[in-house]
Each structure stands twice: as C-alpha cells, then as structure tokens.
C-alpha cells in the first residue's frame, strides 16, 4: 500500500505533471467562468436545487423511474455492490462477446472493463481518451479528460506499441486513427454499454452528454444497450435535467453544451435496453448528514480543474477512479476499508473546489470532517503524531499568560521549522523557515522592477445582437455551423423542434431520433423556425416532447489529446442551419 505522498512525490519528480496540467487547467478555469457568465444568472442555484431535491427524495424518485422505464420497455436493475453490478451486467450481456463501451465513471468504480475481460468478453473503450488510457493501463487521470496526463508523443508511442502505423504525433491524426478503430469495432459489436448523466424520474428518459459521437453509436446499437449508472444520478423531471445540463458542460470543459446531448426515450425498434443502478455504498453515504450532499455531484470535474494539489500531483497520484477534491471526498466514503484514508489530507483547504462546484457541495468542509473521522478511526496518525498533538494541546492551554505561550509557540514553530528544513542532501526541499523578527527595509519598496506578469486576458464584454436568431447564428457559427440559403447537395435534411440562442444548439425530437442516419450522413441540414429559438437550455423544456430527443451543439469533436480541439470525430463536420422563414 502506497500513500498519496509517495505517489505524488513520484508523479512530481519523474513526470512533472504541472508542466502539462497547470496551463491547461488555468485556461479551463478562466474559460469556464466566462461560459457560465453567459447566464442564466441563476444557473448554478437551479442546478444545486435540482440535485438537492434528488438527494432528498432519492428512493421515491427511483420508484418513479423504475415505473416509467417499465412503460418504455427498459429494464431496471439495482446492484447493492460493485460485484453484484458486474454480475448483473454479465447476465444481461448473455452471449454477447464483443462489447463497445463508452466512458462512465461508475464503470471505472466497479472495474467493469477488466471484470468483463476476465470473463472472456471482448471490450473496447470507444471514447478516445479512455481508449488511450486503456492502452497505458494506469487508468484515467481526470474524470472528463482521462488522458490529460499524457502528451501527444507519449500517446503516439502507446498507439505505436499497440501496432498503429503512425508517422506523426499530430492530435488530429491520432484522434482520427482511434476513431476509425472504434467505428470498425462498433460495426460488428454484439452490445453497447454507456453511462448516463442523469435519469429523469417523471418520464423515464435518460440524458447523456458526449462530444465524439461514440455514445450516439452505443445508444443506437441495433441489438443491446446497457446503461450503468450511480444511484444518485436521478432527477425529478425534465426541468431538473436541463438545470443540470446547463452547468455540466460549462463547468467540465468550458463548452456551453457538449456536441451531443442525448435524451433517450424508448429504445429503437429491435433494441433491448437495460439500466443498471449501482449503489455500492451510496445508501450509506445518504444516511450520514455530514456527507449526503456529496451525492449531488454531477461529475463535471470543475473541482479538480481548480485544485492546486491536483494540478501539481496529477490524477494518478490519487490511485482512485475519482481524483481531485471530489475523489478525496468520495473515495474514502465509497471504500471505507480501502487505502484512501489519507486522500482527505491531500488538500491545502484553499476552498477553490467549493467555490467552483456548480451544485453547491461544501467539499472543503467534508475534507475536514473526513480528516477527523480518519483520526478517530485510527486510520491515520500514528502514536507519535497523537502524542505530539496531545502535548501541543497541553502546552497551548497552560495558564501561563500570553508571553509564556508565545515562547512555547516559538519553540513549537522552531520544531516545525526543522521539519521544513532539508533533512539530507538528497531531499530537494528548498524551504528554510524564515528567522523571527527579520528587519524590514522600506527601501525595498522602491527597488521594484518592471511588472512582467502574464495575466490571463479577460475578453472585452461582448455586445450581443438583440434578436435571438442573430445570437443563435453567432454562437452556432462559433462552432462551425454554416447558414447557407439552401441545403447543401446530398445533405441529410432534418427539421428542428427548437434551438438555443446562448449555446448555438438545435433540438431534434421524434421517436426515436435516427442517430445512425445522422452519423452516416456526409452533411446535415437543419431546418429551423426562428420563432422556436429559446435563450438558454432551460427554455427547451416545452419542446422536448415525450420520447427521444437529441440536442446538437455543433459537429462532433474531441479534445482528449492535450485539449487540442479536433472536429469531426464520428459523423459529419458539415452542419448547416436553414432558418425558415428566413430572418430579415
């Protein structure tokens, strides 16, 4: 058993994770804030309220979800433990031997892929990032960007070792190579496994977000689709789901919405669909008032993006499928007898996580409570540390007066200072505790050099066009969507049910939306009535219909390699919108 410290030391010294992570995460945090600032102003409050409500009524909502899924002919299966979840999925797979799996954190939690492989099932990770970390064999280092710890050269090496004939490390080429492997595999797969971002209790619909189109392939599998999800991922209704979606992509990847937002209704004809709900300790968490709100989590990863410890040590240092602040909280809660008791100590308690959490989880308070629990249980803090704190408490509560206490404090801190000093020449710690009462020279104030700070550029405030159709045109245009006067030749022509001005998204409804046709088309033309353009995703609620729906936000793309955006993964890059009647 290794400690976080051992792993972090190794990751920092050998891999220098911050060189890759720091600039990416800095940009992500700035961009994410900018996207959220587009509004609505109460987006985070609404998301927090929807999630808090779900946590409050978890079992009630699951009863409703189960009924609604049954009406749609979708199976509902509840697994108390990880092992039970794997068993259920194996049984549901039946004689399926080739399984196309998309990214799901709960699947990582229950080690689904290795377990299925051990049972003789051939599983392919169809998400580009997951495909890469599967080759590396160390697991994802981020919940939304699994391969963020690897640069393009390392990724090319991994692919080459697996037999890929690649003579470049261009992220476009690498991403397209994996895309083609995935597309070929999916074609003759026997079943697909996906996760879900939120299950809607009132209608039995399931919302899944993705950028690449691999989930679109999975959910439209002609024979079998299995969804694996955590118990907490339920919301009361469509309004709740939209409230979550409205903050999820902005917080996760600084996108207004992901390229695809699937709202799955009834399965396509011929497809067998099941939902496997994994408890694996969540009911126990729910019963503890100090930690129950962690079940609000929507797995956006904003907390790790903002976390200084995550940026320095990287995700693999946590040795858990859940890393960063959320990982430091839920890993010891999900696996109380595991090796995660020291993770809550992997935080400076700077509260950046709590500040960015879009659903209002007080992560830093939970970290503090978990530290106390770990000490209480004897899981951390050896005899020496316990004795030291007792001595400290005795020294600092003696009735000796402030001056004597100060002397004691000085003594104590000098002791601390020695701890901070390098213990041997081998240790690379540059710190030396400053001497007390250093004289300070005001002349230093005048000795300043020029300011060479490279501060992040804050974009000037945008002046948005007043008409919703023009705002829609602006945002969709930013995503590469064109606005020709007539549909391009050979384009698949579809009629949109509505659109979103602030995100440039187009909503398709119908039972079911034909995702396979959409992905097969060389170009897509979407006819849109400008009167159906709403301002924010939450406004789509009345247009969602009762069955299958799909929100398209620009063509498919990936940023799984160094966060470089590569457009056109599964499906066409050519999206055209025809406003009808045309806007003057």
């Amino acid at each position, binding site marked *: 058993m290794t400690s976080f410290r051992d792993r972090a030391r190794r990751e920092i010294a050998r891999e220098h994770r911050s060189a890759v992570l720091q600039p990416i995460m800095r940009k992500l945090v700035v961009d994410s804030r900018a996207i959220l600032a587009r509004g609505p102003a109460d987006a985070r409050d609404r998301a927090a309220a929807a999630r808090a409500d779900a946590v409050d009524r978890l079992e009630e909502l699951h009863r409703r979800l189960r009924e609604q899924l049954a009406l749609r002919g979708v199976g509902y299966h509840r697994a108390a433990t990880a092992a039970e979840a794997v068993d259920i999925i194996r049984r549901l797979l039946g004689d399926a031997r080739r399984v196309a799996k998309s990214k799901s954190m709960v699947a990582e939690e229950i080690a689904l892929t290795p377990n299925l492989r051990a049972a003789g099932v051939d599983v392919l990770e169809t998400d580009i990032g997951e495909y890469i970390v599967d080759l590396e064999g160390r697991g994802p280092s981020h919940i939304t960007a699994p391969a963020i710890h690897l640069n393009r050269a390392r990724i090319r090496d991994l692919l080459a070792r697996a037999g890929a004939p690649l003579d470049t490390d261009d992220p476009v080429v690498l991403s397209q190579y994996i895309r083609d492997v995935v597309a070929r595999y999916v074609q003759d797969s026997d079943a697909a496994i996906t996760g879900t971002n939120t299950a809607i209790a009132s209608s039995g619909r399931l919302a899944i977000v993705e950028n690449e189109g691999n989930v679109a392939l999975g959910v439209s599998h002609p024979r079998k689709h299995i969804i694996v999800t955590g118990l907490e991922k339920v919301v009361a209704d469509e309004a709740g789901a939209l409230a979550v979606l409205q903050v999820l992509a902005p917080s996760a990847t600084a996108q207004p919405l992901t390229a695809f937002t699937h709202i799955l209704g009834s399965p396509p004809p011929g497809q067998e669909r099941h939902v496997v709900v994994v408890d694996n300790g969540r009911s126990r968490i729910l019963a503890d008032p100090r930690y129950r709100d962690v079940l609000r989590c929507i797995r956006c990863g904003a907390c790790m993006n903002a976390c200084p*410890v995550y940026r320095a040590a990287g995700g693999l240092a946590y040795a858990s499928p859940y890393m960063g602040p959320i990982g430091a909280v839920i890993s010891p809660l999900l696996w109380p007898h595991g090796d995660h008791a020291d993770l809550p100590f992997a935080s400076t308690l700077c509260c950046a996580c709590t500040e960015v959490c879009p659903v209002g989880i007080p992560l830093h308070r939970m970290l503090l409570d978990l530290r106390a629990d770990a000490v209480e249980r004897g899981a951390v803090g050896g005899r020496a540390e316990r004795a030291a704190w007792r001595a400290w408490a005795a020294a600092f509560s003696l009735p000796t007066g402030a001056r004597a206490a100060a002397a004691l404090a000085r003594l104590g801190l000098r002791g601390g200072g020695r701890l901070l000093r390098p213990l041997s020449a081998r240790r690379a710690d540059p710190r030396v505790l400053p001497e007390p009462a250093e004289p300070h020279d005001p002349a230093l104030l005048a000795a300043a050099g020029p300011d060479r700070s490279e501060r992040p550029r804050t974009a000037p405030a945008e002046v948005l066009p007043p008409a919703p159709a023009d705002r829609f045109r602006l945002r969709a245009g930013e995503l590469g969507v064109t606005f020709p006067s007539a549909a391009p030749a050979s384009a698949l022509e579809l009629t949109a049910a509505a659109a979103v001005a602030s995100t440039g998204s187009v909503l398709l409804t119908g039972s079911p939306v034909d995702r396979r046709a959409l992905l097969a088309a060389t170009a897509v033309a979407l006819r849109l009535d400008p009167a159906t353009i709403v301002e924010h995703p939450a406004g789509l609620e009345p247009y969602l219909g009762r069955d299958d729906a799909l929100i398209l936000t620009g063509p498919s793309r990936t940023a799984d390699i160094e966060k470089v955006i590569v457009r056109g993964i599964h499906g066409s890059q050519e999206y055209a919108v025809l406003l009808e009647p045309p806007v003057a």
Partner: protein
Amino acid sequence: MASVALFDPCYLQALRPGDAGDARRVLEALGDTVTLIDGRCCGQPAFNSGFRREARTVGRQLLKAARTHSTIVTTSGSCTAMVRHYLPGLWSPPRDAAAASIASRFVDFASYVARHPGLGRLGLRLPGVVALHESCHSRRELHASAAITAILSHIDGLEVREPAFAEECCGFGGTFAVKQPETSVEIMRAKLEALGATGARVVVSPDYSCLAHLQSGAEGLGVQLEAWTLPELLAKALA
C-alpha cells in the same frame, strides 16, 4: 473611539514578534483603545489535522480570553476564519451557541480597518511597490478582498501589483506543508514565479502564514522577495 481587543495569533507571536505592536499602532491611530488578549492559538493546526479534541482544548482558552470583549481584531485571516466558521462546531448543543456568540465577535484586521470611520483621516503614505498575496481563507471564507483593496488604496504613493492567477493557493495549507512537502513546494513554485514576475520586492498579505511559507522557499528558488504583514505595512505608512 472604540475599545477593541487584539488577538495576536501563535505563529505571529513566534515569527513576527513586532506584528502585534504594529497592529496596535494602527488601531490607536484610528482612535481605538486596544487591549491585547491572552489568547494563544485558535486550534487550527490540530483541527485541520483531524485532531478535534485537541483543537477544542486550545480553542476554549481563546474563547475564554475573548468572552468579555465585544470586538476581537485578529491579525490573521486564516485564524479568523477558523474561529468564526469552525470553532463553535467543536461543541455540541447547547454549548456551541455560547461559543458561536463569542466567535462571531472576531473580525479580521483588514475588514475591521476597512470599515473604520477613521481610515480616511489617517493620511497614510508609503511610496513604492508591493505585490499583494491575498490568502485563500481571506478571499473565500472571509470575503475580505474588497476590504484589502480599499485599505491599500488609501496609502498614498503605493502601487499594488496583483500577480497573475492571484486566486491560486500558495501551497501552504498548514500541516499540509509538512505532511505533503513535495506537493506543497510544487504549488509554491508557481506562486513564487507569479509573484516574482510582478517585479515587486515586497509581498504583503493579510495572512502571514502564507507569507512565511513563501518566504521560506523564496531564497532557495531564487526569488528576491520579502514578506510583510498588513499591519506592518500600514504602521510604516503612518509615519
């Protein structure tokens, strides 16, 4: 003319023995009568390490020393946050309410000075440049950013430079700096780099704990930076 108590936290007593004197000078210049309370430590080191019983033992002494005072000015943001947000929770009802009533009278030095009616009359002047490191606890738990900016803007001749990515942590985190030294230093590097880039040779902060940490690494990492506390800076600006 207010009568205020001053709490000089343990690590400042140890590392900046002159800090309480500077804070007293500033408060007296504002027209207050100042009593130094016999408080030693807020209990934060033990609390953040998960040793709550020990934190309560120590915190109890501080609340006892503070109980007869209506305002307790504290020269460390992080200690103020500890007292206000966490200390009362170490007792169970009904005793937590009594603790909370005392704890709520603690105020960080920056917030207190910023809203003091006497601030505009102080005539603060100190020509030169400082970099500002606002601590995470001051920023996110006390929401004192505006107060600090307001105070510094009252100092005639002083240019304040915020480093790039000012909201990022310095890597101290109390016992984190000792328990996770490699990660702590890695985070510190980035902060020192950003502070160094401002060109300022003096960095000021409402939390000397961050500064002591940064100062401890500055020389080793080749950054010329001297750490001043906010009371220290203001006291110099009084003269």
